[in-house]
């Protein structure tokens, strides 16, 4: 079980080299039809400096999947872990050619009583991605929930 002592711990330092081919593959996977994801000319016409990444693209840094090693670091029982929510704040568009460095850390840990007894644990994990100059590009926040362990009588 995770506890508040984990707040602030750095879990990963993901790196994303944003490539046009990866953007096209990801756009197809999330059923995004726009030409801007596939052509530099269309991207330019839509106001981007290069081919833009879809809104949830930062998950491709492989820091966001539930079988990641950091669930071990968090001491969460994978069998009881749910992905509750995710959010992204965009400081500027992510585009092909970007070289992003991320830091993934535990932003908060708290508990709530489970409906059938026991305790649910909420872990908020924040990843901040910056460009080589250190300017923030995108901040991703994810909440994972470890459901209550109900001991049957």
């Amino acid at each position: 079980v995770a506890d508040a002592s984990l707040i602030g711990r750095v879990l990963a330092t993901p790196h994303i080299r944003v490539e046009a081919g990866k953007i096209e593959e990801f756009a197809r996977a999330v059923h995004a039809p726009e030409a801007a994801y596939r052509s530099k000319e269309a991207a330019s016409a839509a106001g981007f400096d290069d081919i833009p990444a879809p809104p949830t693209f930062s998950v491709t840094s492989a820091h966001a999947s539930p079988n990641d090693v950091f669930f071990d670091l968090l001491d969460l029982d994978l069998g009881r872990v749910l992905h509750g929510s995710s959010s992204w704040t965009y400081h500027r568009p992510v585009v092909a050619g970007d070289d992003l460095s991320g830091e993934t850390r535990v932003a908060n840990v708290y508990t709530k009583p489970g409906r059938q007894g026991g305790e649910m644990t909420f872990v908020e994990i924040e990843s901040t991605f910056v460009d080589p100059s250190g300017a923030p590009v995108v901040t991703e926040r994810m909440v994972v929930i470890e459901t209550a362990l109900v001991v049957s009588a």
Partner: protein
Amino acid sequence: MSLGPGDQAPELVHDPVTRTDIVRYAGAGGDFNPIHHDEPFAAGLGLPSVFAMGLYQGGILSSFASSWLGLINLRRFELRFAARVWPGETLRCSGVVTSAEDVDGERVVEVDLSVTNADTGEVKVTGRATAAARSTGGDR
């Protein structure tokens, strides 16, 4: 024309979710948890089949929001995962503007979004987006 409170996105109904859709997202997104692609593994856990990762239907919702609001206008996007999506389900995306205000000289709208089962109405994912309202144009 810019968006205002009450404006609704044209609804979008996708083809039924296939295992191929789920595997394509696994490859693109890098989520290789076998519960999403390995049928015997899922059956071993007592599940009726594999199911989609929340970020698959979340990604579909992000595409819907971007087409409606314009990707370049997007400032913030949020997903809350409510229910699993199984192969064969037909998903509907919806969106409505809930508020508009001026922030630092820019007109910004808040939008409520959802993915529901088109047949039963079950809510799969809800979303919120914040976007500049300077145009309604997508990037198509």
